[in-house]
């Protein structure tokens, strides 16, 4: 028994766009099966995961809050993945961005520092993420070290650094020994977009990133260069595009956006540093990037869809006692389905039993 793959001559853009939708439905059915196997009702789970968040205005805001870091990080990853470079350390770049930006917030805490604090914090966040992202890129371009493993290892290092800071030098002295920093001053807090709303300006940054990226990837030489480097690296070199420069650029961009996501989350949502500032946004963003077919608009939609699973996961934990790990497992299944669907669109797959003549 074996599979036979025949490349399809042409694929309509509609089919390509629908492939992630089909993948999502498939992943949903599989997850339903898992829930049923666990002896729970898939219908009740569907209600908690999908229907309730979408019918509740508070949950809709929460959806935007959760989709913000996912979209920001995934947009950055799209630059990397289009050029076929594997930055899987966005989680670490997110943390370093948050740490470097928060450094200023803590330095200026309690002083009369003015309006400049917040913008500089955001810039430091971008800088921190970009520099941290450049480490694996530099090791790759200068020494040929595989970027997958180094970027991933640096995630652990970043998390341990954050852990050290909030338990040690940056711990709030009046915080009853809890491992957390002081609460940021208003001048260091990213304000909500609407008065008394939950959605902070990070959502605006994400929207801007989507628009800018749509133009850059679709309408500029740089966007073409990334596609060419990804699809035909030799052709890109003959065209005079330096692979090294491309590598450094995409890692800096994706690291910077992840860092921005990190500092926006800390200053706009959490309001202080804690040992854990992400439920795995950096890793989930990989799923988001592929679910959105590495297309900025697609990524925006995908971020909203995947954010739904985060919120659904949290309420399912409370209401149905379904563990949060289910959400993670679902995200893994989803990514597998998306990648398989991509291949199914490009190839016609037939299952052939052995012995049948070719």
């Amino acid at each position, binding site marked *: 028994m*074996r*599979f036979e*793959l025949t*490349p399809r001559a042409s694929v309509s853009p509609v089919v390509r766009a629908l492939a992630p939708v089909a993948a999502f439905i498939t992943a949903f059915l599989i997850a339903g099966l898992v829930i049923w196997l*666990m002896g729970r009702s898939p219908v009740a789970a569907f209600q908690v995961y999908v229907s309730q968040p979408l019918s509740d205005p508070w949950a809709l805001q929460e959806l935007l809050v959760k989709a913000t870091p996912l979209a920001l990080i995934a947009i950055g990853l799209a630059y990397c993945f289009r050029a076929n470079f*594997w930055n*899987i350390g966005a989680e670490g770049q997110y943390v370093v961005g948050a740490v470097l930006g928060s450094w200023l917030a803590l330095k200026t805490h309690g002083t009369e520092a003015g309006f400049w604090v917040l913008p500089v914090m955001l810039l430091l966040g971008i800088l921190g993420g970009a520099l941290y992202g450049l480490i694996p890129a530099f*090791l790759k371009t200068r*020494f*040929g*070290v*595989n970027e*997958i*493993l*180094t970027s*991933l*290892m*640096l995630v*652990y*290092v970043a998390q*341990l*650094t954050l*852990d*050290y800071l909030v*338990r*040690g030098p940056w711990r709030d002295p009046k915080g009853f020994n809890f491992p957390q920093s002081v609460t940021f001053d208003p001048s260091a807090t990213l304000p909500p977009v609407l008065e008394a709303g939950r959605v902070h300006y990070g959502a605006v940054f994400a929207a801007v990133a989507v628009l800018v990226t749509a133009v850059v990837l679709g309408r500029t030489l740089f966007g073409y260069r990334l596609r060419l480097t990804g699809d035909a690296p030799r052709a890109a070199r003959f065209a005079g595009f330096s692979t090294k420069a491309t590598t450094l650029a995409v890692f800096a961009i994706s690291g910077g956006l992840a860092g921005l996501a990190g500092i926006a989350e800390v200053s706009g949502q959490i309001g202080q540093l804690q040992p854990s500032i992400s439920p795995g946004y950096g*890793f989930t963003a*990989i*799923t988001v990037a*592929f679910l959105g077919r590495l297309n900025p608009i697609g990524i925006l939609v995908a971020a909203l869809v995947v954010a739904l699973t985060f919120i659904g996961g949290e309420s399912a934990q409370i209401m149905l006692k379904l*563990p*949060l*790990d*289910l*959400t*993670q*497992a*679902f*995200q*893994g*299944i*989803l*990514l*597998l389905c998306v*990648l*398989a669907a*991509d*291949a*199914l669109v490009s*190839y016609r*797959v037939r299952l052939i039993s052995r012995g049948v003549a*070719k």
Partner: protein
Amino acid sequence: MTTFEAILLTIVTASTPLLIAAMGELVTERSGVLNLGVEGMMAMGAACSFAAAVTFDSTLLGVAAGILAGALMSALFALVVLGFAANQVGSGLALTILGLGLAGLIGAPFVGSRRDPIAVVDVPGLSDMPLIGRLFFEQDLFVYGSIALTVLVAFYLTRTRSGLMLRSVGENHTSAHGLGLPVWRIRFLAILFGGACSGLAGAYLALVYTRFWSPGMTAGRGWIALALVVFAAWRPGWALVGAYIFGAATVLQLHAQAAQFGVPSQVLSAVPYLATILALLALSIRRGRAIGAPGSLGMPFVPDR
């Protein structure tokens, strides 16, 4: 037993799961497939083995369940990357995410349970040798098994016809296909072997190393095993050396934490990860670009008939 001996013994225990997982991934990668799902398969191996061992009160059944879980996860990976020719890096990541999530689900009811230590096998006579006696001849069966596995894999890859076929599929799948080698089947079996090894490594972690289950207990060991394969330049012997170096780094940082040198514990906890980066860096500087990597590694295979 002196403290020094005790430390050496724990190094062996810490190195064994790394070695087993690295050996599986090495065979998979030699066939030209990059499976980044080691961490997820290992977590599944740990959760399933522990669940089975506690439920049936049998270490043997636990180990079998761990191996089976790893192999099943890798079969899913094989379906996607071989059957559908999907992107291997992405699929491997997905497998890790899925494995960590599923392992959490399976392991949740068993948080707080403990298993008794498994028996060590004493090689009569040899274990009485000073220092190295206890270190090499009074270990559990897995330790002996992992060494035997290394020797067998090395022998298989370099001295058997089937091993030669596997390597040629990994070096150039188009030529291998042209010569009539069953690329698909060889890769499928290599992926299954890798998954079974990862599952076994996870079982060792849960049943011997910690003897309890906790979420996230693999703590990046799957990724370190992946790095070991690169570090070893895809050679079994070097993977053995590398596994023991990393095992030593892990254990020594734990002892350094206990000794309280005034260095923050987080700095010491970061040592294995930083060591991995430095090892990969040192290797690349010495050997140049990715020498030793199988030629078709990570590339999807779609034959033109």
